[in-house]
């Protein structure tokens, strides 16, 4: 897929798209079984969404207000909400800072998914019973 996709046009299971966003919450690196993951909250003029960078090649986090360009990104369902992912075939780079219009709402990761779309992982196993997890989840 070519061209930039605004966040509100993201659909589950999209691949290889590019988008430009601004960092609202830089999140943190977390270790996983397969490496590490950087989760953060990003936004553009059409809404905000959770984003995950898989196995980033850098250890520092971005700053709030950094403008990032995702290339080769994909969408997935994580914890019942839509999430942008950037894997080994993708790229996430800072392009600038501050001067980008954004909107926190709607929070696309909190929006109900279209009918028929499910979180494959949650189909496979029962809901987790312990604390922790997605830091952006609404209470």
């Amino acid at each position: 897929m070519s061209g930039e996709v605004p966040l509100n046009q993201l659909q589950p299971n999209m691949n290889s798209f590019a988008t430009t966003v601004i960092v609202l919450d830089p999140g943190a690196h977390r270790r996983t079984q397969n490496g590490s993951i950087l989760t953060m909250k990003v936004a553009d003029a059409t809404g905000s969404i959770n984003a995950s960078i898989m196995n980033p090649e850098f250890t520092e986090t971005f700053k709030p207000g950094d403008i990032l360009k995702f290339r080769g990104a994909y969408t997935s369902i994580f914890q019942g909400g839509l999430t942008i992912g950037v894997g080994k075939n993708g790229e996430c780079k800072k392009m600038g800072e501050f001067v980008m219009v954004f909107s926190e709402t709607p929070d696309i990761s909190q929006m109900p998914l279209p009918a028929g779309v499910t979180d494959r992982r949650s189909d496979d196993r029962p809901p987790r019973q312990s604390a922790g997890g997605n830091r952006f989840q609404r209470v």
Partner: protein
Amino acid sequence: MNEQHARRIQKLMKINMKAETPPEPIARLVTDSISLDNRITGKSDKEVIDILISKEEQDSRSIGVMYHILTSIDNPEIFQKMIKFINGAGVEYWHYVLCNINMIFFECWPVIHLQCKEQLIRLIREAVRQNVKQIENVLMNAYRVASVSADLMGKQKIFMMLTRIIRENEGWFKAQRQCAALVSIIITSTTAVIASSPAPMTAQDTFRESLTDLVHWVIKNKKTDCITLGRDFILVLFRLGKTPQGEDIWKDLATNPASYGVAGIEDFMIKPNLIQHLRISIELDRKLQFMVTSGGKNTLIYFSWLTNKFFRGPDGPSLRAECVRFMLYMNLDPAKYPPSVFETRIQIIHLLLTTVSAVHEQQFLKLCLFLDWFGCDERNLINYNYVEVPFAVIRYALFLTPGPPHPNSIVQSSHCSHYANSLLEYLCKSVDTLIPVLSDYFRKNLNNAMKCCRDRLQHGFSQVLENSKIDRKTTEQLRAVFPDFIRNGGVALPVARLKKKPVEEIKQAVPSTSASQSGSSEKIEKPTEKPSEKPAPIDSQRASSSRQSTSDVEKLQKKEKAEKEEKDLNTSLKLLRGEVGAKMVALKTQWHSLDDDADKCEAVEAVLQLMLNTEENFDDAQQELAAQCLQGIMGCVVEDEKSLLPDNEKDLSEAFTHPIYSVLKFLCNPPNDDDCSTDMMATMLAAMREKDSSLTYVLLYFIKGTSGSRSRDTIDCYKDIAKMSGRRVDEMLASDLQLCAINDIRLFANLVPFVFSHFEEEVMTTPDLLSTLCSNLDAIQLRSFVSEIIREEIKLFRKESFTKIVMGSVEWATTPQWVFWHLIHADGVPIEWFLSTIPKLDFKNHHEAIANILLMMKRMDREPWAGLIRALFARVPHKGDTFTVDALKVLIEDSDQCQKVSELVAQLIKKLIGNNDLVGVGVRATKKGNPTKLTLQQVLEHLQHFSTSCVEKKQRSTESFMSRNPLQEAFASIRVNEKASMLVRMYSNLFGAMEIIAQETKEHSSSRTLRGNSSSRQGSTGDKQQSQQQSKRKTGDTDDEQNNKKRKVHKEVIELSDSDSD
């Protein structure tokens, strides 16, 4: 991008190439440098110069040269070689170089290494040494960009280098003819750095001293250029504080103002800064411009980012001051930008001011905000362009309601109306303390500014100065400084203009001026609290002179006013025609010779009778003129600090003796009872009201006191006047009562019950009148008013207009709202009336209404019903909003009601499933009049919030509620509905909790059955738990361990909603 590129980019800036794309100008510097190197490698100097000056790709080559200059800190030979190439390429080639320097200032400065910045300054130094044409503009930009830096040490280093350039080239600097902008920027930016630099710890630390010397030297050598800064030059002198250099300039300015091209300090104050737009760095300029034009509702977030980057360091406060001055002068075209942009500007200025913590910095920022008010001299009309924004900041602060801090923001809640008060106090106090010898001049200018605001803002102006959030103390201070703008000016104290002080006195005044910002700004805040030990000759002389002159001034003012009124009266009399005119002149002539009020009344009545009977051409214009003449002759019945009500309020027999009541009598009971007479009297009263707006509340008082049972008929006269004046009755009533509350609070208390019992229809439909009432009632009046409501003398609220009134009331200040809710409770308004209000109340702002509705629900004496439950769930869920949760908790407290609530919630859930209203939160409805559509997801969201917040409480009513059969069945129906499966997953915590509670209940009931507990037959978990608790009380804490275990299990389930449900 190859390795060579990456290496060169890293020589210019700190960058992680895996996480960041270099800015385009940096990439260009690198690309062009590689291209240049490819062309010049192995070439002789002459050949290189030929390549540089060849027209082909000249621009690109010069950028390549810049790269080598920037990166040659460890290799001075390359630097020298590049200078040699530039010089070899000729004078014109320097033009390209200067353009490139500017490009780097504009696009790359914030990101390049300090060493690169130093190299750039070295290049400027070389250019100055060679007196390159237009280098002064580049030097100005250097000062501009250097004023902002995240690295304080780096900033100091750059400023030292820039200072050295000026000092080494003093001759060049003095010889510059047109360098006012450079002079101004050097003065403002260097002074800001001085103000933010720490005091030297050692004798070797000469940074601050050398910068202060530079500013002093620049001012002394470029005196006439200082006028470019206008009143900001005075701000600079305040910044320099009590340094010897600063005092020397104050003295110089006082003794020899002509050398600065001015006649005195006033000439600086009268002029605005002409280069305000250049005072902050390009980066900061761009970000502020962006915030203003595009920040919108995210302004707080942008501001928190801005603060993190620029305002956290020691130079933060001085940068804020620069930003405030910059923002005030920001040129925003109203044709190009929507009004929200102007609001955003005000919000940013307010944030800049309120988020600084140090008191003395706060004071300086206030001075920055109001500097243009102090200089608002009417001789320079451009000054009026800069007075509205500071007033808008006061207004913004006054109406700001504190909200919870944004999760992404470092900005905490604001000072709101307290800050508005402190701004006004600052204005009032600093008028005399800022520069004592100019206090009269400042007072006049402040009044000019205030007048300009009043003329331009009109209603918005009175909203501020007459706002109930302005403290009484502040109002008194305002009245002293702005006597013409604060009503009921009994203590208006305009200070008489003093003669100009000789130069020696100015010298004495200077230290106190500079002290106002050099860490002792408390002096401005509390000028009278700490009298100086030594008597201050100027101030004491001024004070005594002021006291002496006060009464004279008052007399003078009264005399002037009387003269003006007399003149107006004579003019009007001349315009009156015929017999009425002659009679009026006669009345005026004999007025003062009439003995008492009775004679005067008789004379007035005779004139009125003549008017009503005259057959001459006595048209509307003549009627209005006659009314104004009559009013001029009779004078005003309302006197300062004297109530119209007699001491014995019940005996009004002697109350209506003033001649004005004769006019009112003719209005209410015209001798010729025809429409023509009534119209004429109404026209006259409307004309009189234009001059004296207190007249209509006097009319209300007259109607109340004289009409008795006929008062409902005579009320029509009041309505006629409103109609003639072109105002709505409720509008006029609100303004009359407000004025009455200010002028005569006793009369206000007396009139309010009358108004509310006689103007029912109008009162019911307007929140304005209620606002006036609630803002002005004191405790005794409130008690009396409540008493009248209870005795059914007054019926305040009606169902059809109630929602409008409540939604209007939430915008009022807290105290009037409290009074309003007292009245609601007194009136016995049922909870049913609030159904349409409940979904609309904003949990962040409408605290008073929310608290009171909850209390009403707690005291509610009827069973819950479907409408109430629907209204509660119709609120858009938000994690900070506990209204629905609290309301549910209130409703289920009683075990009988609990069953009913569970049935209603279950019905609602089933209905939503039946209607297929499943997904979405806060969904907009298509149906008119119903802004949002209730969905199952919204109900579940509330219930999840409820279950997480209300379990594990002493009464365990939540668990009881959730275990009720109807609710369990409703949840079961959600589970089996395929379309709602996504909701089951999304709210898995809630569904899990429901299951566990159901299971727990089953276990309880089976164990009780086994033990033969008869209460289990009742099937109510709540009752079981209550009896459990009772037995527990009896048997002590024997079951504690068991209960704790159960609670532990339950708690784990509830915590799920806070955790990852994956």
